[in-house]
């Protein structure tokens, strides 16, 4: 916030910084940012909920993000999502009850040349097949 001179315009930048430090944005964080930047709380909350990138829930220890952009979709990413949901017993956007794994989807990470793509804890892996992904999920589950 100091870097941007506590400017109101820096709301999104500030939220990015908070999320990258804490992994998600809880009510306290949003309230604090809104107060510090003199932005109405409703506006701050509106911004957080508008953009997909911001998360209001704490992520699991590991995150599997499956790209569901068009190129990945054509190459069968819907099957990957279904397989992961079935394996973990949760829907996309949720975290397993033991807090180990979050299953997320993304709208295109721009690596379409290597579709279908998943991000394992932010690391990009191309030409993914169901078995490899499930193996990774199994490794995480026992960690």
């Amino acid at each position, binding site marked *: 916030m100091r870097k941007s001179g506590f400017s109101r315009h820096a709301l999104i930048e500030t939220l990015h910084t908070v999320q990258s430090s804490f992994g998600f944005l809880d009510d306290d964080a949003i309230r604090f940012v809104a107060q510090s930047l003199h932005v109405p709380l409703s506006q701050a909350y509106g911004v957080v909920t508008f953009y997909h990138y911001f998360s209001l829930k704490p992520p699991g220890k590991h995150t599997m993000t499956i790209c569901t952009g*068009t190129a990945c979709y054509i190459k069968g990413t819907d099957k990957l999502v279904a397989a992961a949901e079935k394996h973990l017993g949760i829907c996309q956007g949720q975290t397993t009850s033991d807090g180990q794994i979050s299953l997320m989807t993304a709208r295109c990470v721009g690596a379409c040349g290597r579709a279908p793509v998943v991000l394992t804890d932010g690391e990009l892996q191309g030409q993914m097949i169901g078995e490899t992904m499930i193996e990774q999920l199994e490794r995480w589950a026992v960690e």
Partner: protein
Amino acid sequence: MTLEELDQIAKSVQAENAKFDQEISVCMGTGCMSQHSDQVKEALTKAVAAQGKRGFVRRTGCMGLCAAGPLVLVEPSETLYQHVNASHAESLAASLGGKPVAELQCELREHFDQQVHVVLENSGRIDPEKIDDYIARDGYRALLTALNDMTPNGVIRQITESGLRGRGGGGYPTGLKWSTVAKAPGDMKYVICNGDEGDPGAFMDRSVLESDPQRVIEGMAIAAYAVGASKGYIYVRAEYPLAVSRLTVSLREARRRGLLGNNIGNTPFNFDVEIRLGAGAFVCGEETALIASIEGKRGTPKPRPPYPAVSGLWGRPTLINNVETFANIAPIIRKGGRWFASMGSERSKGTKVFALTGKIRNTGLVEVPMGISLRKIIEEIGGGVPDGHTFKAVQTGGPSGGCLPAEMLDIGVSYDALLAAGSIMGSGGMIVMDDTSCMVNVARFFIEFCMTESCGKCIPCRAGTAQMFTLLSRICDGSGTMDDLSLLESLCVTVKEASLCGLGQTAPNPVLSTLKYFRHEYIDHIVHKKCTAGVCNIQAPVEVLA
């Protein structure tokens, strides 16, 4: 910084390179990095040193052919190696100066020979984080020439003469946009670079920002000089961490060299650029929504006019162009508008970068002159559909574009020809589908995308896309009727005509184009209750993907 100083930097880079007999470039774009090209580079550096070769291993940006990554290019012999991993380093290093390693060699002359590189001329050739590498390849020459020898009007004249049109999708003439902003009254103006590449299936902008960020910065600076702005913003998606970090480094380097900041090139011209991160909203590619997002608000579009050229960021005149548009500026100023206009078709000049993806052999980035036929791009440059399947459709323009069937492959790519065919140029994503894709399902996928990405401000888009999605889901699971189909068609027209911004106005395009060219598939689903591609599960009562 003067032109002479640029020459000196270029000479010292060349002298440095001349110390080596061989230059080895390792692609470190996102695609190749995901296959550990960083380890390849490290192993190669070690192997070259251990074997006492006079070779220089360089990190570069994207070389385009993502399908064959990680890629390594050896110069001066211009040998391209594909699928290289760290264990190949020893044999590659040993081959330097001798015979190339045959089993790793990439022989895709057809793929590269038909391309013309303007935007991508430095991609895969320079280290994106070293400004001197860019200067050695004529970088910043255009900016300094413009500042010293050209008036702002002269710059705009060159751009107008070049016939360059906005590469973000709309195809608005760039010269006209610039002159509107230049004429707008006000002492504070802004230049914004739109790098919110939201189209799923497109990654040209990411690649340019990762491979040659200085080119975009130079283009923005020239634009700022032409329209009289002193502050710029680059809006980049947060999903592109590598592009953001390379841009950050590049901005710092440019400031250090005095190419951004106050009194650039010893002239009264001041300009600096800040990065703004997107946060995952497709609608922010729309210019008024993007401006709202930079101001720290929800990215909802505003009705135009007033256009951003008159009242944009914080109510000031604002120039917004796409990454690829800015990347074209420096070469135009360097070589002249007439040179640029000599390429391409009658009303679409120059070259265009396309992201070839989907069911196609050579996935990756290609840059081709406008007017080249779709068939050439897909069958010759792209290598056709793999695994013995047959081509069914090509989708251009992202979720706002359309699907074109095999009969339309002979049209040349230009803004007007694609529009006439029921699709759009868009930002340049080209997704190839084969006989395993169901077009109804694809249309449903795009409408679902537009439905979730609709900002909700205007009703035709918010409610219309949701209703279209319900109708398409019904058709997909076999419970649709012919009435649903006609309702869908009339809804398409309503949403197209009545929506506020580009997202809603173009959202029906995938449905309209598939209805135009693949109506029989809709009929198959409704009347014969079958999905020829075998994607839709017709028996199931609710929407289920196979």
